[in-house]
Structures are given as structure tokens and as C-alpha cells.
């Protein structure tokens, strides 16, 4: 073989490093979830004001200020928890993590109370009118994502309370936190569409 040619072979510059597969996996999961939410949001917007009978959004919907503040600030507390985990301050991590769970639960409870009011006092159900159908579907789809996130948050809380070395799982905790941010971001869209524009 011609040694001169081989000597000129393009060398790999530095270490061969590709993006982390877990990171990529979570990113594309979020992309595909976004596509799912987009269609529900589009359906909501298309049917805005198309209900043939009441109750209408402006009569029955109140701005869920407390719930929104809770959910959005839980994005902050989960970042703080992540930060604490990075610096191996486990007690602080558990505290912030617990705060995140409480805030998430508060959001779910508020949603539950809101739905209870809508169903029992305003007699709005999925089948009442188009508003009911699209409202419960979109908000329900988001809430179901919050519930899934909660289950994972609680799982992490439990294993760290029972002595599992959670500090070795920094990467997975980060993925969970990304998912949680995504759920928050979706809420910003849902809030804007349903409670601000749609009212």
C-alpha cells in the first residue's frame, strides 16, 4: 500500500463526540408531544365562539391566577432542586423537590375545583356544547400530562427519601425537569388561548 496516501487520510479532529442519546430522546419526545398539543389548540381556536348554546366561556371561566402562579413557579423550584443536586446538597434538593410537588399538586387541585364548579354549578360537561368539548379536551390533555409528571416527581421523591443514591441520577433528573418545563410552557399557551383570548 502506498504509505504516502494513507498518511494523508483525513484524521478525526480531537475526540469523536456525539450528542448524548438521552438528551436527544427527550428533545424529540417533546417535539412529537408538541405536535399533539398543536392540533388540540388548533381545534380550540377553530371552534372559539361556535357554540350554539350556553354556557359560554365569558360567563363561566375565571382566570386561574393561583394555579398558574403555582405551576409556573414550580418550574423555578425544580431548577433550584437540580442546582442543589449538582452541588451534592441532598437535603436542599429534597426540599426544593418537595416544593415542586406541592406546587404541582396545588395546580391539579385548583383544576379539579374549577371543573367541579363548572360541572355542578354551571352544568357544563363535555357534551353540553362545543365549548365544553374543546375546553375539557384541551385542559384535560394538559392536566393528564401534569399528572404523569407528578407521578415521576413523586417517584424521585420517594426513592431519594428511602436512601437511593439520587445524586448518581443527575442526568435523568435533568430529563424529568425538561419535561416539567415543557408542561409549563404548554400551560402558558393553554392559558393564553383558553382564558385570555377565548374569553
Amino acid at each position: 500500500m502506498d504509505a504516502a496516501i494513507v498518511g494523508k487520510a483525513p484524521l478525526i479532529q480531537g475526540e469523536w463526540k456525539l450528542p448524548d442519546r438521552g438528551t436527544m430522546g427527550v428533545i424529540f419526545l417533546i417535539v412529537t408531544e408538541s405536535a399533539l398539543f398543536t392540533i388540540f389548540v388548533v381545534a380550540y381556536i377553530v371552534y372559539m365562539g361556535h357554540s350554539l348554546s350556553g354556557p359560554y366561556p365569558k360567563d363561566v371561566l375565571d382566570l386561574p391566577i393561583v394555579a398558574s402562579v403555582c405551576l409556573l413557579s414550580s418550574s423555578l423550584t425544580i431548577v433550584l432542586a437540580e442546582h442543589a443536586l449538582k452541588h451534592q446538597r441532598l437535603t436542599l434538593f429534597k426540599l426544593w423537590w418537595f416544593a415542586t410537588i406541592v406546587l404541582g399538586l396545588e395546580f391539579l387541585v385548583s383544576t379539579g375545583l374549577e371543573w367541579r364548579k363548572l360541572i355542578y354549578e354551571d352544568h357544563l360537561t363535555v357534551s353540553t356544547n362545543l365549548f365544553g368539548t374543546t375546553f375539557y379536551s384541551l385542559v384535560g390533555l394538559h392536566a393528564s400530562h401534569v399528572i404523569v409528571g407528578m407521578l415521576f416527581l413523586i417517584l424521585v421523591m420517594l426513592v431519594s427519601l428511602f436512601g437511593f443514591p439520587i445524586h448518581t441520577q443527575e442526568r435523568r433528573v435533568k430529563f424529568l425537569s425538561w419535561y416539567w418545563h415543557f408542561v409549563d410552557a404548554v400551560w402558558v399557551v393553554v392559558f393564553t388561548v383558553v382564558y385570555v383570548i377565548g374569553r
Partner: protein
Amino acid sequence: MASIHYPVEHSQVEDAPFSLSSYMYEWVSTVDHKRLGLMYIVTALLFFVIAGLMATIIRLQLAFPNGKVVDPDTYNRLFTMHGTTMVFLVGMPFVAGLSNYLVPLMIGARDMAFPRLNAFGFWIFLFGGFLLYFSYIGGSGLSGAGSAPDVGWFAYAPLTSRAFSRGASTDYWILGILVAGIGSIASAINVIVTTISMRCPGMTLSRMPMFVWVMLIDSWLIIIALPPLSAAQIMLLIDRFLGGNFFNTQSGGSAVLWQHFFWIFGHPEVYILIFPAFAILSEIIPIFSRKPIFGRPAMVGAVASIGFISLGVWAHHMFAVGMSSWSNTFFTASTMIVGIPTGIKIFNWVATMYGGKLRLDTPMLFCCAFLFQFLIAGLTGIMLATGPFDWQLHDSYFVVGHFHFTLVAGLVFALFAGMYYWYPKVTGRMYNETMGKWQFWLFTIGVELTFVPMHFLGFLGMPRRIYTYAPDRGWDFWNLLSTSGLIFQIPAVLLFVYNLLYSGFKGERAGDDPWDAWTLEWATTSPPRDYNFEEIPEVKSSRPLWDLKNPNDPDWRHE
């Protein structure tokens, strides 16, 4: 020294005595990408035969006027299940199976990025398929009405509402496809992440095989386009089970919205289905022309632009519902534009063959036929993309002829080419070339006979999905001609299956690299071992095996 080593010969390890249960257990519990890929493809072939038999019955029913082979209700179920099966249980698992088997081998990886997710994807897909077919038994539901779904593969509202579709047949359609779709999304995310994160050293994006490029963009389309279908199906479930009003026109809902949502999925879906064909051709044509592919960057660019433009053409399926003329104009224009990158691809394949040293083995024969037939399919597509032309021929047999030309005369030809091409890699044995050539000619004649007359039937005004027709319409001859294609197609498919089985046991040993090919899957043993590569290869150009075989004129000098 070159960095890719052919694996060392191992002395055969003494196998444990064969036991069926442990053999089954191995396959059921496997997370190996090659086995999962094969299971996808075998499942797809089984469903292909089932849906093919349905098509046979449909054609027999239509062979003569006033046909009485099946009753009208059965006929509606047949075309619904035929379409649904071919798209979701044949096309989609072929995408997943091919990319599962080949992508890790081609990029020099030992497995997919998420092997267990991969296994989950396959099993949930299979469960979705069973759920759809269980409708034949469970579809009558509590109300005792209905059997298999009979609403057509795109299940237009309001036909799917409780009032018009009683029983559980439509619910089986929704749930079966929803569940199978989760499997497709899982597998697509896996392919994307594998391609991004698992490439062997030196395998930059510009050196990645065309096959991997196309499957990467295919998977991108899957994760963007499948969720809209899932969303629409969830809405339909809400309508059917909770009394929702999404597609209920009496409460202000819109039946047209279902069409929009379905085709936002449905049009990218046809590109999802045809992309594997592009991927296969881009591998086979260069090898059998002994030339590197012509205009590689243009090829990648064309696929990528299809990956985006095809997301904005969906409403060309809906010219006849009465959209605004602005919408009609927009979707006519965008559909014409998506024809351009497709044209670039055909041009590049032909240019690759031009001046090449052609070897007309069976895989190449199928590729050549693909070029002719897919061109025709593309041209009828451009015709239908024109709004006024579509008004004339919408929902006619012209449309049926068009999409069967893309999917059978196009995709299925490419799949046959691919299966012949990689058969020696998968089994270690060569298929029987004589049988392969016979199958090619039988199948080509059969496909032309069956699907060309459909175009004429469309011009003569025959609507699609009709159960039968009166003798005085002038459709008799073309319908009989169309059905007569079966005489060639059925033996061709049987011959193919026989060839696969026969050659698996009796075929000649193929060796590791029977085609003198250039991509990494041919650098390992045939069949590849569990770990794929003894040593992770390192590549320096887009044709690593060429570099290895021609150390005096390696590709990287020219790239």
C-alpha cells in the same frame, strides 16, 4: 493500515440442543435491532398477504357487472380493512423494520440508541394490529351491530359518529391505529436518536449513507405527522364515548375539520411510506451501476425539502369539499412545488445509471421498473394536484389508479428490490436468481394489467368504492382487464415467498459481501452477529468499503 477489519473466523461454538420453547423465548424477549427489524418485516409480509387477499376478493367482485361474490356490507369492510392494513400494518412496519435492521449496521453501531424502547415499539404495534383484526370477532359490540370497520381508511366524519356507525367497529379502527401509531412514534424517535448519537468515529453527516439520511428525515416526518392523527382519533373517541361535539355538525362542529386533521397526517404519511423506496433506490442503483450516486448533496437537499414542504400540501385531498379559491390555489401551488424535489431525485438516479457499468440482477430490475412506474405515478399526481382537474376526477378510479401506482408500482417494487438486495446479508445465503427474474416479470406484467386500466376507468366516470356497476356503462372491459392482472400477481407473490423460504435453506452461501458494495453493513459477517461489529469501524469517506478495497485510490482523496 485501514481501520475496518473483516471479522476473524470463529470456530463454531457447540450449540445447545434445539428446543422450541427457548427458541421462542429468545425471539419474544429480544432487544436486538436485527431481530426486531426482521420481526417487523415478517409481520408486514403477513399483513401484506392478508390485505392482498382482500384486494383479490375486491377485484373478483368487480370483474363483471352485477358481481355477486360478496354482499355490499362485506365489500365496505373489505376496502376499509384493505386500505387500513396496507397503510398502517404493511407500510409502517416496513419503514420501522428496514430502518431498524439497517441503520445501526450502516452507521457502524452495535444497536439502536434505546433497544428496549425498540422492543416496546414492535410489540405495541403488533398489539394494535391484532386489535384492529379482532374487530371481526368483537366488532358487533354490545348493540350487536357491525363487524369490522367499514368507514374507509380515512374514516370521514360524520360517517364515524355514533348515529351512523353503531356497534364497536369504528372504535376498533380508532384504537388499533392509535396503539400501532404509538409504536411507530417510538421507533421513529429511536431512529432519529440513533442516527444523531450512535454514529461510528468518522461517520460525519456528509459521509452518512443515503439510506440513513432518508430514513432520518422519514422518522422526522413520522414524529411530526402521526400525532395529528392520534389527536384527531382522541377527539373522535371523545365524540363517540363522552358525547363530545368535535365532528358533530348539529352542535356547530365541523365534519371538514376531521378531513383537515386527517390529511395533515395523511399527506405526509404517503411520503413516509414512499421514503423507504427512495432510501432503497439510493443504495442499490449506485452499487449496480458501479458509480457513486450522482449529486449526493442535491439528493439530501431534495429529501430534506420534501420533509418540510410535504407538511403543507394536505388540502389537495379536499378540493372537492368547497374551500375558498385562495386555499385551492395555495394547495395546488404547494403540491406542484413538492414535485420538484421528487423530480430531482429521479433525475439523479438516472444520472447515476448513465455511463455506469449496469448489472441487471433482480434488485436492479425492480429499481429500473420503479423509475418508469413511479414517474407515471408522479405525473398523474401533478395532474390531480390541479384543482379543476381534480374536481372532474375526484373520488374516481383515476385516483385509485394514481395511488396504487405510487404505492404498488412504486413502493412495493422498491421493497422487493430491497429484500432481494439485503437477503444475502440477513440469511447468509443467496436468493435464487432465476426465480427472482421470473417473479420480477410476472409481477410487473400483473401490476401494469391491474392498475393501468384503473386510470381509464376513472376517465370513464367509475367512482371509487362502489360495490358493483351496471353492464351498460362501458366499464366491463377495463374492469375485467384489471382483474386479470391477478393471474400474474398472485403467482409472483407466491414465487417470492417460496424463493425466500427455499433459498434460506438451499441457497448458495453468499459470503459477506456478494455485491461488492461500499457501505458498512457489508463489512460484517452474513448474517451479522449480535454485536454487529467485532471492532467499531472508523470511516474516512462516504464509501468506507471502497477505501478498504482500493487503498491506492481511496474516496477521501476526492471528497
